[in-house]
């Protein structure tokens, strides 16, 4: 016959074990990125289509306005000249040829130049790193971006330049943006919704990706960011189209 102590021990242990087992039922082991359901996909497609329709509507409206402005301009009146000037200014702003001012963020990326080479890694490609940040800022609603006062436009390039500096380390320390050499610290300025850009950077864990390579990544929200105009070579400056 079992003693009372044994019974109590067995009962207590069973209750605790049962409790622990039941906790397993409430653990959600499904992956956080669950596969899309057809409903979700359909609603997403509908939202995309609606957004696209809205954008196309705006483009059509702008085109009609432009057509009207050009029609007015053909009359060779003062109003026509003014309209042409407005059109030119709008195109300049869209092409990044004018100074831009507005709320935004500043990102400062820096590192200790005395850091030793990371074992197994020849060097850190800073151009790829900056391209990643620029693409993310663009995707999160940045209207204009500049790196170390080099305004980024559709034809801009960001290239790593190795060998221009003599320092030994994992970083090249020199980049070419728009063909102009720039040196660390890299300061990216972006005009747009600051909160949206900061959120995108946080969600992607960009700062952590830089920090893991011992690079600092500081984001500051600024009320009035001023970005310089693009001053580089424009397409058609040297090479002229024939037959136009």
């Amino acid at each position, binding site marked *: 016959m079992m003693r009372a102590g044994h019974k109590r021990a067995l009962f207590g*242990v*069973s209750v605790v*074990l*049962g*409790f622990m*087992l039941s*906790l397993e*039922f409430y653990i959600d*082991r499904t992956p956080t990125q669950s596969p899309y359901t057809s409903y979700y996909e359909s609603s997403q497609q509908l939202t995309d289509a609606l957004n696209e329709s809205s954008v196309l509507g705006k483009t059509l409206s702008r085109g009609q306005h432009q057509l009207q402005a050009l029609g007015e301009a053909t009359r060779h009146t003062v109003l026509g000249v003014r309209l042409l000037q407005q059109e030119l200014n709008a195109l300049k702003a869209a092409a990044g040829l004018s100074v831009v001012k507005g709320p935004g963020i500043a990102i400062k990326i820096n590192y200790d130049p005395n850091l030793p080479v990371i074992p197994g890694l020849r060097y850190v490609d800073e151009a790829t790193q900056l391209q990643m940040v620029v693409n993310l800022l663009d995707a999160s609603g940045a209207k204009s971006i500049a790196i170390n006062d080099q305004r980024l436009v559709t034809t801009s390039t960001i290239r790593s330049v190795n060998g221009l500096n003599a320092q030994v380390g994992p970083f090249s320390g020199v980049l070419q943006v728009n063909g102009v050499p720039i040196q660390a610290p890299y300061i990216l300025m972006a005009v747009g919704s600051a909160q949206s850009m900061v959120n995108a950077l946080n969600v992607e864990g960009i700062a952590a990706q830089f920090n893991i390579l011992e690079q600092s990544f500081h984001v500051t929200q600024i009320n009035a960011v001023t970005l310089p105009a693009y001053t580089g070579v424009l397409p058609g400056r040297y090479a002229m189209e024939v037959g136009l």
Partner: protein
Amino acid sequence: MKQFLLPLAGLIIGILLGLVTKIHLPIQYASYLSVAILAALDTVFGGIKSGMQNQFDHRVFLTGFFSNTLLAAGLAIVGSFLGIDLALAAVVAFGVRIFNNLATIRHLFLMRKKIPSQN
């Protein structure tokens, strides 16, 4: 058979208690709980074996249950901080012990059934 009714009732009560309280455990702690459950199961099987061998001591059983469970979960937590999967070590150790205990229980059970005169 009657001796299994009390632990079974306890197990059911424990499960019901857990289901009623609806404590949500984050997935990050799931591995710790799993290792703790494995350690608890090892102690339970050890207790069954000792009972069949008439060597059951409730003090050893209780202390073994709680210390093994806490130690296993603690090892897993320390391992996650050190970057080593110490939970795996606990799984292997307790897994081997559970199978050994089960083998002994099976042997004891079969011997009792087949050759009752020898016991």
